[in-house]
């Protein structure tokens, strides 16, 4: 009987165990639901919004929140709720793809630099240092201003900007793992470099990479919002939370709702993803002090 119980616990599906851990931490759970809510609104947004996000209706401009327009209307009479929901789509896609790009390239470059070491490592890390010597926002502004700002260029810039950070993290983990006995054993067994990297090194890098990916998503949202605010994000008529805030600033006193809802969305999403990221760190990297 006793063995049965142990076995049952043992075969408990992995997702259930993770779910229990998530539930144990209140902040992570809040963050989790926030992220799900925003992702959901990004996916099904176009189906549920009551109005077209670009439809102008001058007669209905600057209306305070009501049953018809639950977040009110802006200076062109556009429905703020529809615009905020559609804005979640562009921010999630741009920040998500940008972070994914940074993680993929950072992983590959970091693996190469860390595993091979030597001159190659020196050259790669020097280049990364050069990239990091230009303040991120400044680099993004220069590139977007010179080459023009579009959906794709913002993704590329955000992705490119965070490659050095991910590379550094991956490289430092690889440097640590490289010295372990199991790597030595695999080499002695005559395993190929490909096998060692994929089967021995990568699984140990993945937890760090997952935490780093979530952090990159946080900072990518931060960057997309800031660029949008400066007018260098996605171009109108596509709604962008940052740009909505900067556009609404002259109406701050008369129609605070135009500025409040996009700004609150940025704040809630950023804080929510930060909470999830922190939960991931606690779950996946339990050893580190900064994790608790």
């Amino acid at each position, binding site marked *: 009987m006793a063995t049965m119980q142990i076995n049952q616990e043992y075969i408990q599906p992995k997702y259930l165990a993770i779910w229990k851990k998530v539930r144990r931490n209140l*902040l992570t759970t809040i963050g989790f639901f926030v992220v799900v809510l925003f992702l959901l609104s990004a996916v099904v947004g176009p189906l549920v919004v009551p109005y077209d996000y670009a439809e102008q209706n001058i007669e209905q401009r600057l209306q305070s929140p009501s049953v018809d327009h639950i977040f009110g209307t802006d200076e062109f009479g556009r429905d703020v709720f529809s615009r905020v929901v559609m804005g979640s789509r562009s921010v999630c896609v741009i920040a998500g793809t940008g972070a994914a790009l940074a993680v993929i390239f950072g992983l590959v470059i970091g693996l190469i630099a860390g595993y091979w070491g030597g001159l190659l490592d020196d050259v790669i890390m*020097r280049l990364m*240092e*050069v990239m*990091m*010597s*230009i*303040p*991120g*926002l*400044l680099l993004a*502004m*220069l*590139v977007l*201003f*010179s*080459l*023009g700002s579009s959906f794709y260029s913002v993704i590329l810039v955000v992705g490119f900007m965070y490659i050095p950070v991910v590379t550094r993290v991956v490289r430092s983990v690889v440097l640590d793992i490289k010295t372990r006995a199991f790597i030595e054993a695999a080499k002695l067994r005559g395993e190929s470099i490909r096998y060692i990297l994929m089967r021995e090194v990568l699984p140990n890098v993945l937890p760090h990479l997952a935490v780093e990916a979530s952090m990159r998503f*946080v*900072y990518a*949202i*931060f960057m997309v*919002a*800031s660029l949008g*605010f*400066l007018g260098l994000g996605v171009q109108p008529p596509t709604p962008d939370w*940052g740009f909505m*805030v*900067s556009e609404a600033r002259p109406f701050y006193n008369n129609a605070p709702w135009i*500025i409040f809802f996009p*700004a609150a969305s*940025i*704040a809630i999403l*950023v*804080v929510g993803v*930060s*909470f999830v990221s*922190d939960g991931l760190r606690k779950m996946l990297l339990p050893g*580190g*002090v*900064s994790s*608790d």
Partner: protein
Amino acid sequence: MATYILRRFGSILVIVFLASLIIFSITQFLPGDVAQLVLGQFATEEAIANLREEYGLNNPFYIQYLDWAVNFVQGDWGNSLVSRMPVFPMVMSRLRNSAMLAVVVLMLYVPFGILLGVLAALKRDKWPDQIITTISMMFVALPVFVSSLLLIPLFCHFLGWLPANSSILPDSTFGEALPYLILPAIAVALNSLGYVARMTRAGTIDVLRTDYVRAAYLKGLPRRQVLVRHALRNALLPTITIIAMDAGMMIGGMLVAEVVFGYPGLGRLLLYGMQNQDLPLIQACSMVAVALLCLANLIADLLYGLLNPRIRVK
């Protein structure tokens, strides 16, 4: 120590050189032709061709870069394409204003971040730690313009303590400017505060676990003395690196804060340059920002070497 300083200084010069190459290259792609911009849209083809020749715009890329770089190092930063005034004094007066803002930002988040981090480490897992870590986590990646929107209603409209607009006269003294600096500085500092607090907390917890701190306690030294004399010296080493690594984010944050509050600093000058396609102005502002970031890293390296003798012999 001398060789350590020289080596760091040398590698930073190389980095600044490569970064200047990147910035010069990117700005070559700016929309619009410089000669056309200077002469206006009614200029004749011939006048434009002459000016292109005069500005060296027909030269190969590396010659243009060398011309620009040599002039730049000598302090000749060219004239603004819009106002026709020399760029150097313009940038310097804005740099002074941004430096005043940076001083207030640093004075806000470095001491408070360290204090909160140490406090959280000492009260680890108790409620002060929970509150400090949660709140600092919330502000770490909150865009500056969003946190400003929280601060302005609170401090300007509700409490009425501080002005919401920081468009001071460009040559105001630090004392005159201070009331206008506090709110933008808080907005920028909030991002870095959580980061510093978190790293200080981790560093302090690490050090408090070590044998030498235990030995100091067992020797009968008072808690305060163990903390200040023994633990903090090592616990703050990672914090210094973090502050330097965060400098890039701080520069970006200050740029946004200057725009939000209308403060006449370097960031707004850069944005103004971009809006007017003022190439020399954009290049100068960007290079100053890069130089500042590298300087911050150099200072951090030196402090690190000073506090941690082990690094010098490596």
